């Protein structure tokens, strides 16, 4: 019975792939009053559906472990349904329906974790509903502008309405992707969600916000230039968006560095990575959108990989804080490799595809002549090395800091299979960036009305500003590595392995298990002494929202005073109000 359920669940998780491969003509579902839900697959949604098709089964696989969690399976199926509706929607109502189903089903999935606290759950649902309602408001403005719900370009661009529309949609999607200062729900949700589900949240659901932002480009052709004019070589409205993205990624990167918990670090890193995408969408040129899509693809793969691996570590050790882990490299070698590949992708180092994405974005910034943005973005992408290093050092290297970390074994196969698949995909995409450009990115760009980037060959990434060849790079690096290693063994002399982890140069001292040798959570603490970073780490927007909550509760209490318990008061109130209104009406001339 439970096996049947699991097989069924796995089949359901493959449904996005099925949709993607078998989708034929468009469907329409009349809702009411002339509102018709249109469902169609265009290249833009196909790209994001591909991400979903890729990610959904990989997240589902680890969920199969243990006794079947039927409510979670059902909610996951609903979530997939909602996201497919969202992506297939050809009109805004269908989009909104999918968006909302996704929101509440993911919220209920979030509650499946025992770590979710009230604050985290509330901030998740309220931020997301606020996003949804802003979206709905935008949709209604759109409707009043065009008299239609279909997703299409807006003809008239003058007047305040299109700007209001852009702001409403923009805010809605920016909340979803978690840009500053609307990001508060992200770290809490990613941290507290069930460990596997965090992968889904970060890798796939944040991409729906990205999809929305790209839809903005559909709504406002010429990439937002029409709204506020142009600045240097790019749209001025996009310049604001780009700065929002970059500041988000800078702040989130430093926050990530200061985290002491694996999942929170990954959460902040997600915010930062999606910040790059936001920036690129702000630039809006063909290169930039290509870079944004590539970054979305890479970030999906990387975050799936990292969150699944981290979930495996938490499963095996029961620990999640950097201080409690360490030296798992010998006991969890595949997980180590997975995190290694993951952070290389995250940091955007060649030869993995993260570099291709960064390259496109950098080049697009140079093309737009927005060099200050480029410098700011570089700051966050370089600072990202620190948290990447922390992420691999603290759990896998150094010294084991808890009994669990000393005895842990490799994660079970449902966790390892997705890891291996994702590692393979990342490496393959890194060697063949041109393949990704040609078959995944270019169709979307064409559909958006932008010039395709094109690729001379699968291995080559080519832009007007020059490019690079992934195959050559990988071959050279691999050959050099093989030659160096081989040559090293040709030299005479014996290699020996240290007999103990405590065989360290330690000023002649003999460290023991009690010596604080693991640098884990402390890494990056000294960054606080740098003025800018110290300032960033000291400030937070939590206070504002806490204050807002407190104020609204106070208002609730104040108003609640009306609802007394005494019938006399009720009557008095009614009569008094009646008298007052009567006086008013009489004074103003008797007209109602």
């Amino acid at each position: 019975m439970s096996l049947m359920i699991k097989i069924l669940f796995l089949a359901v998780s493959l449904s996005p792939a099925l949709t993607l491969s078998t989708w034929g003509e468009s469907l329409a579902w009349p809702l009411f009053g002339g509102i018709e839900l249109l469902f169609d697959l265009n290249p833009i949604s196909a790209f994001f559906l591909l991400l979903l098709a890729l990610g959904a089964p990989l997240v589902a696989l680890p969920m199969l472990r243990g006794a079947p969690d039927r409510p979670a399976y059902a909610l996951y199926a609903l979530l997939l349904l909602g996201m497919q509706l969202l992506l297939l929607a050809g009109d805004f109502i269908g989009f909104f329906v999918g968006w909302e189903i996704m929101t509440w089903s993911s919220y209920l999935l979030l509650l499946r974790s025992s770590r979710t606290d009230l604050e985290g759950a509330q901030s998740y649902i309220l931020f997301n509903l606020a996003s949804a309602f802003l979206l709905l408001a935008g949709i209604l403005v759109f409707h009043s502008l065009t008299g239609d719900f279909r997703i299409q370009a807006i003809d008239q661009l003058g007047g305040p309405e299109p700007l209001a529309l852009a702001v409403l949609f923009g805010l809605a999607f920016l909340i979803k992707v978690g840009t500053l200062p609307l990001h508060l729900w992200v770290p809490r949700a990613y941290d507290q969600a069930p460990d596997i589900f965090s992968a889904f949240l970060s890798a796939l659901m944040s991409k729906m916000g990205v999809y929305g932002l790209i839809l903005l480009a559909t709504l406002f052709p010429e990439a937002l230039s029409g709204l506020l004019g142009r600045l240097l070589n790019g749209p001025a409205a996009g310049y604001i968006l780009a700065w929002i993205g970059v500041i988000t990624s800078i702040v989130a990167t430093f926050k990530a560095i200061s985290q002491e918990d694996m999942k929170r670090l990954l959460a902040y890193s997600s915010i930062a990575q999606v910040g790059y995408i936001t920036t690129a969408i702000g630039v809006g040129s063909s290169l930039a959108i290509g870079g944004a899509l590539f970054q979305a693809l890479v970030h999906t793969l990387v975050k799936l990989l990292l969150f699944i691996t981290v979930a495996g570590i938490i499963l095996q050790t029961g620990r999640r804080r950097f201080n409690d882990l360490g030296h798992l490299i010998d006991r969890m070698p595949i997980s180590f490799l997975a995190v290694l590949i993951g952070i290389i992708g995250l940091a955007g180092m060649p030869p993995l595809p993260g570099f291709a994405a960064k390259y496109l974005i950098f080049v697009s910034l140079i093309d737009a002549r927005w060099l200050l943005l480029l410098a700011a973005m570089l700051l966050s992408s370089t600072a990202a090395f620190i948290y990447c290093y922390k992420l691999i050092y603290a759990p896998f290297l150094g010294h084991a800091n808890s009994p669990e970390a000393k005895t842990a074994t490799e994660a079970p196969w449902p966790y390892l299979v997705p890891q291996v698949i994702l590692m393979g995909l990342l490496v393959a995409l890194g060697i063949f960036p041109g393949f990704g450009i040609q078959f995944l990115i270019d169709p979307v760009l064409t559909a958006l009305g932008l010039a395709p980037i094109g690729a001379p060959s699968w291995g080559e990434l080519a832009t007007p500003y020059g490019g690079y060849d992934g195959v050559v790079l990988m071959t050279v690096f691999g050959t050099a590595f093989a030659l160096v290693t081989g040559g090293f063994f040709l030299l005479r002399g014996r290699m020996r392995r240290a007999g103990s982890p405590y065989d360290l140069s330690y000023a002649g001292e003999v460290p023991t298990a009690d010596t604080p040798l693991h640098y884990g959570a402390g890494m990056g603490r000294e960054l606080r002494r740098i003025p800018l970073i110290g300032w960033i780490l000291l400030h937070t927007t939590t206070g504002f929202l806490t204050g807002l909550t407190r104020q609204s509760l106070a208002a609730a209490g104040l108003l609640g005073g009306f609802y007394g318990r005494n019938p006399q008061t009720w009557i008095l109130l009614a009569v008094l109000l009646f008298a007052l209104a009567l006086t008013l009406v009489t004074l103003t001339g008797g007209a109602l």
Partner: protein
Amino acid sequence: MYHKSECEGFQCEQRMLEESLGQENAQTGLVDRLVGWLRQRSLFVLAYGTGCGAIEMRPLMTSRFDAERFGIIGAPTPRQADVLVISGYLALKTLKRVIRSYEQMQEPKYVIALGSCAINGGMYWDSYNTIKQLDHYLPVDMYINGCMPRPEALIEGFAALQKKIGRGEPSGFKRYRENIDWYKANQRRVLGENMPPDYTYDWYHAGGVA
């Protein structure tokens, strides 16, 4: 005067050590000499400032006497060092650290005992907490006499050590390896239970095969 042809007690050990010290290596081929020549040009020194002799290392390393012109330069950690300089008397507490540092150095490695305290205890010959003869605990390759030896003497000593290395002669680390039981017994005699851990010389457990 009382003379005895046969040694007795620790004097035998002394002779044994002295004999092995002066032994010529028959197997110094061309490659070995080349390697030795390269090695002698570069000595990284772990200067263990155990006693007052350390004061003489400073002028040696700095502008006045400029040991760098001989390729002699300080190394921060034992992993990178070739030469361990024991500068002066050696308290028992320090001995433990010195032994650990020595064992953490990578072969080939050399020990220079600096000053009379390291040779025979010097003015601390009857102190309860210093060792008398460094040679009993670590294999010394070069003694530099004096109290204190001047930097010129130090340069002389280093030059002698470089010549020795250049000739490809076997050095103290081989002796340490071959007579590890003896050295460890000596160390244990003075350090008692307070021995440095033994994982730094894995070949000992491998039965001398490495």
